[in-house]
């Protein structure tokens, strides 16, 4: 270990000793999802109540969002997890542990201890929604304060960077990533090492690596989840990305308004700068690297890699023609790589443990894990990291806990340009290739679960309305195609469809596929084509005007010149 890193480690030890010097430590899991249910208020209540003998720590979500707000009590090497906490429950838990050494059972959903403390409450490891996970990128979830450098270092943070800078050449790091089989987690599943190898050879004095955290996909929150829970993992990965490709600058790209993740990652970047982990001579090496947050306005297409660069340059986020590819001419015409947050967040662990270790998880062509966001009609909505190759059924049952109402009818995966899957597809393994064969994409990892009450036509109408609203308008097949498709779907929903409507939809979809610059138009027909695969009968009933008219849907309107009557 180098001197500089050793010093940081020592500082971290002192810091942690002080943080945990009290016998009683209570961690409150905040984050966007927890705050939606009042986690902030609970945090403030506990901070007000706490005396010098108790430490209250704000940490990110552990992913069990169905139990939020969650607080975790650390006492005598044991951990007690309390779920669905209200202000008064938090006060009760606090009061109990202030005065007692024994276990407080009410509202506790799990505990961790070497001993058996309760026969009624399970150990955390006995919960399938925890034990079936394999947490690599999310290893620190629920454990540390987001953006706190020394808490991260105490968890062995930045050791991969230290190893890379002093024991490995940039090409070794690149080789390791290549060999790990890591593929892009943003949707396209492009081999990450290969992408990096396009950028590495360029001798340009300024080169960019960009982290795409735009994540406009409704139903997915794992990018923001990493940013707001463990941003240092991303910062470390991004520096490694820069080192491996001999790059000089980086941007973390995220949509304005998402203050919790933005603040967390800015704190992480600032603390990294203050401690010699960013800037000149990182950790005492010869490597210099700059990092900054870049905000975008509301635009879904800004998540497309060339549109993203337009947005960082301050323009309208519309996609560029390719070639030139970003590695040749990207941000401000400089060589550039763009990677998704999740992709980058795997890199520190890959460097730490080696590519062979990473390859040991997952399937042959989809190595490692997938971070899935389960939402909708499930017992246990949340964010879970699972080995690639788990079946959809396992994910829905073991992690999601099955339906919270009637039977599960269908899933919507991979964002609004992804697909709709029926029951026949539930044996599909979650990996990049099997998911696309089934007609959907794994994409960003969002899985929206619908029970029998949801009409498939209503769901596609919602997805197409989203795509219509978010089309950037640059390519007319996408701009008009989505508008036209939405019109046709509205007819279907109102039992006013015309005989050839299905054919018309197919024709529009096809034009969009061949006539659009980016995935937004190219994949725009996906929701309909995949739904047809599994729910042809139900859709045909609507096409034949034999189904009940659906209720009006409130969506923002965005008229376009040349909109069809």
């Amino acid at each position, binding site marked *: 270990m180098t001197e500089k890193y050793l010093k940081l480690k020592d500082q971290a030890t002192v810091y942690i000793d002080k943080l945990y010097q009290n016998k009683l430590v209570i961690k409150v899991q905040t984050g*966007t999802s927890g705050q*939606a249910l009042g986690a902030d208020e609970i945090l403030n209540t506990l901070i007000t109540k706490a005396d010098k003998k108790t430490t209250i720590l704000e940490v990110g979500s552990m992913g069990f969002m169905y139990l939020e707000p969650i607080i975790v009590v650390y006492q005598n090497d044991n951990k007690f997890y309390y779920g669905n906490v209200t202000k008064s429950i938090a006060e009760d838990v606090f009061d109990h542990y202030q005065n007692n050494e024994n276990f407080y059972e009410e509202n506790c959903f799990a505990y961790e201890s070497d001993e058996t403390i309760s026969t009624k409450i399970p150990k955390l490891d006995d919960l399938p929604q925890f034990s079936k996970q394999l947490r690599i990128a999310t290893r620190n979830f629920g454990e540390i304060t987001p953006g706190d450098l020394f808490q991260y270092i105490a968890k062995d943070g930045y050791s991969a960077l230290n190893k890379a800078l002093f024991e490995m050449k940039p090409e070794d790091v690149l080789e390791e990533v290549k060999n790990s089989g890591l593929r892009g987690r943003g949707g396209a599943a492009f081999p990450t090492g290969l992408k990096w190898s396009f950028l590495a050879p360029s001798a340009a004095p300024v080169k960019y690596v960009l982290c795409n955290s735009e994540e*406009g996909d409704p139903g997915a929150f794992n990018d923001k989840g990493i940013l707001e829970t463990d941003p240092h993992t991303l910062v470390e990965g991004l520096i490694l990305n820069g080192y491996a490709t001999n790059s000089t600058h980086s941007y973390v790209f995220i949509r304005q308004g998402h203050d919790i993740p933005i603040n967390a990652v800015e704190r992480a970047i600032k603390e990294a700068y203050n401690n010699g982990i960013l800037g000149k001579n990182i950790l005492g090496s010869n490597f210099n690297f700059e990092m900054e947050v870049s905000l975008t306005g509301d635009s879904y297409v800004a998540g497309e890699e060339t549109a993203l660069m337009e947005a960082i340059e301050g323009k309208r986020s519309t996609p560029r023609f390719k070639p030139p590819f970003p590695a040749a001419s990207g941000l401000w015409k400089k060589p550039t790589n763009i990677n998704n947050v999740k992709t980058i967040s795997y890199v520190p662990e890959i460097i730490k443990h080696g590519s062979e270790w990473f390859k040991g998880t997952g399937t042959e062509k989809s190595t490692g894990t997938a971070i899935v966001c389960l*939402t909708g009609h499930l017992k246990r909505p949340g964010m879970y990291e699972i080995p690639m190759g788990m079946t959809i059924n396992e994910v829905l049952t073991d992690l999601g806990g099955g339906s919270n109402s009637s039977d599960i009818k269908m899933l919507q995966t991979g964002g609004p340009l992804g697909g709709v899957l029926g029951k026949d597809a539930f044996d599909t393994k979650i990996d990049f290739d099997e998911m696309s064969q089934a007609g959907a994409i794994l994409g960003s990892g969002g899985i*929206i679960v*619908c029970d029998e009450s949801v009409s498939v036509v209503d769901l596609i109408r919602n997805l197409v309305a989203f795509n219509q*609203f978010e089309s950037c308008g640059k390519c007319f097949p996408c701009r008009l195609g989505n508008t036209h498709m939405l019109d046709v779907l509205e007819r279907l929903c109102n039992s006013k469809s015309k005989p050839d409507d299905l054919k018309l939809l197919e024709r529009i979809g096809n034009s969009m596929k061949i006539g659009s610059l980016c995935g937004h138009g190219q994949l725009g027909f996906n929701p309909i084509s995949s739904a047809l695969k599994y729910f042809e009968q139900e859709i045909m009933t609507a096409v034949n005007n034999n189904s009940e008219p659906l209720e009006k849907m409130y969506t923002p309107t965005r008229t376009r010149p040349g909109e069809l009557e």
Partner: protein
Amino acid sequence: MPKNKSDSEKIRNTIREIISNQKRKTVTVLSSLLAIQDSLHYLPDEAIEETAIHCKVTINDVWSVASFYTNFRFTPPGNNTLDVCWGPTCHITGSQKLIGQAHAQLEIEGEGETKDGKVTLRYSTCLGACAQSPVFAVNHEMHGKMTKNKVDQLINKLTK
């Protein structure tokens, strides 16, 4: 409402200050507009002009950006903003009925301001707390697992 000269000059000074005091290093048309809207909650005409001057681009260049991103608005919003999510997860868990209820209680149709200017209603494609759907947000503060009663309470508080 037409502004008089001194008001306009005042707002220009404020805008110039906002543009030159951006906390992030990279300053662009978009970053400037975002910063202005962040403090003023809308983009007055002066914002477009001052951004063009500062970034050395044309007014058209700035308009092209300002008119593109859907978060920008050009009139002052109401005192409070209510974001309602219509994304697919919220959609299937009942957001449409709640949006309808919000319309009725606020006496507006679609997006926009209430007559008394107290509340601005906006449709959001995703607020990022999908596990707690349906989700509303009041002045950026999230409210999850919304129900008829919760919407009722929330709006009563806003319109009081």
